[in-house]
């Protein structure tokens, strides 16, 4: 049992957290997206799913399950579906077609190697991109283009890893890797729900504002200037967004200490 998260002293087990995440995902169901490939290429592999259009996630799940069983046609299908975008991703950095193809090949091999550890919770495309990113990073390091990040912070003490604020040092909270994944999933679900609300309401400016603030880390003033809105509007959007996330995190019994940005004003 994990202790020390919720402020009221109650505890939440990892099993309870998983159950909450499942409920959250069901309440804010992911968008259905449809395959763009249609019937461009016919293989012997045919997903045994119900009639009509199917979601990419469902198709990918069936594809991966078939690959686990050693289905070569399914493996060929996966390569066909994802090779182009992985190559574009890698080549944008390497600008060398031959080297880029080598890295993508390593990524595909890496995927097969890691298949026993892939549980399908993460979308297949995201998983493949992350493997490609690791292979690309390795390649860049071998070429001497990308410096290695030392493990030691050097003169900085471990305390400097913690962001300033009233939160107790996050680094002092020992959690398992699985626990961290569950926390990230919880926050991801909460952010996703808000993004879908903005999109549904046509609140594109709010979405752009929050994305600039947190994905690019831009200061309020710069965000206001780029979007042509006031700094007060930026501050208000930020406040509302963080308040909503804090509410969700508290309801799930998670510690805000591991999400230090939530304590920003």
């Amino acid at each position, binding site marked *: 049992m994990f202790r020390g998260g919720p402020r009221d002293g109650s505890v939440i087990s990892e099993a309870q957290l998983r159950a909450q995440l499942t409920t959250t995902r069901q309440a804010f169901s992911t968008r259905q997206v449809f395959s763009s490939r249609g019937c461009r290429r016919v293989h012997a592999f045919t997903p045994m799913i119900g009639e009509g259009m199917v979601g990419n996630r469902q198709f990918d799940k069936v594809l991966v399950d078939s690959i686990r069983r*050693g289905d070569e046609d399914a493996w060929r299908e996966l390569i066909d579906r994802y090779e182009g975008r992985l190559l574009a991703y890698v080549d944008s950095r390497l600008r060398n077609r031959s080297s880029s193809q080598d890295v993508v090949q390593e990524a595909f091999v890496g995927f097969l190697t890691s298949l026993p550890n892939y549980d399908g919770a993460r979308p297949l495309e995201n998983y493949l991109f992350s493997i490609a990113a690791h292979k690309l990073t390795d390649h860049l390091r071998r070429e001497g283009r990308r410096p290695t990040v030392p493990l030691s*912070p050097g003169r900085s003490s471990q305390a400097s890893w913690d962001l300033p604020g009233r939160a107790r040092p996050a680094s002092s909270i020992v959690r398992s890797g699985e626990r961290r994944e569950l926390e990230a999933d919880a926050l991801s679900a909460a952010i996703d729900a808000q993004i879908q609300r903005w999109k549904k309401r046509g609140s594109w400016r709010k979405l752009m504002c929050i994305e600039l603030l947190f994905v690019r880390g831009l200061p309020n003033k710069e965000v206001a200037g780029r979007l042509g809105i006031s700094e007060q509007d930026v501050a208000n959007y930020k406040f509302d967004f963080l308040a909503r996330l804090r509410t969700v995190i508290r309801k799930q019994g998670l510690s805000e200490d591991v999400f230090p940005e939530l304590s920003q004003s």
Partner: protein
Amino acid sequence: MSEVSDSDLEAYLDESLPAVEMAGIEAALRREAALRERLVTASGRRDAGVHSLGAIWRRHRLSCPSREQFGSYLLGALSEEEADYIRFHLETIGCRYCQANLADLKSQRLEASDEAHGRRRRYFQSSAGMLRR
């Protein structure tokens, strides 16, 4: 080079910034000890389990348009607001995964099918032996 945010340093660790910005940060890391220190701190925070909203947003691709939406974008079939957001996501946020998806969709129109087919056949042949039966 303009000030690099902590969010951008985390994106650098994930190899998810636009290529030009990645190269810019690499060059800056060689010159600036303070930036190297900040990168080590960002890496340490991540290893210590401190969550970052931006990193979670990027990693989970929470605002990325679907590939089908990119197809509609290329066809000019989206509303002005949706198209405007996609341009923002590609050019201002600089999502490299979405840039790759768009580039792939564009190249499918231009690339000779033989070239792509040959490339994919090589990937398959070099990896099919790893499939478990």
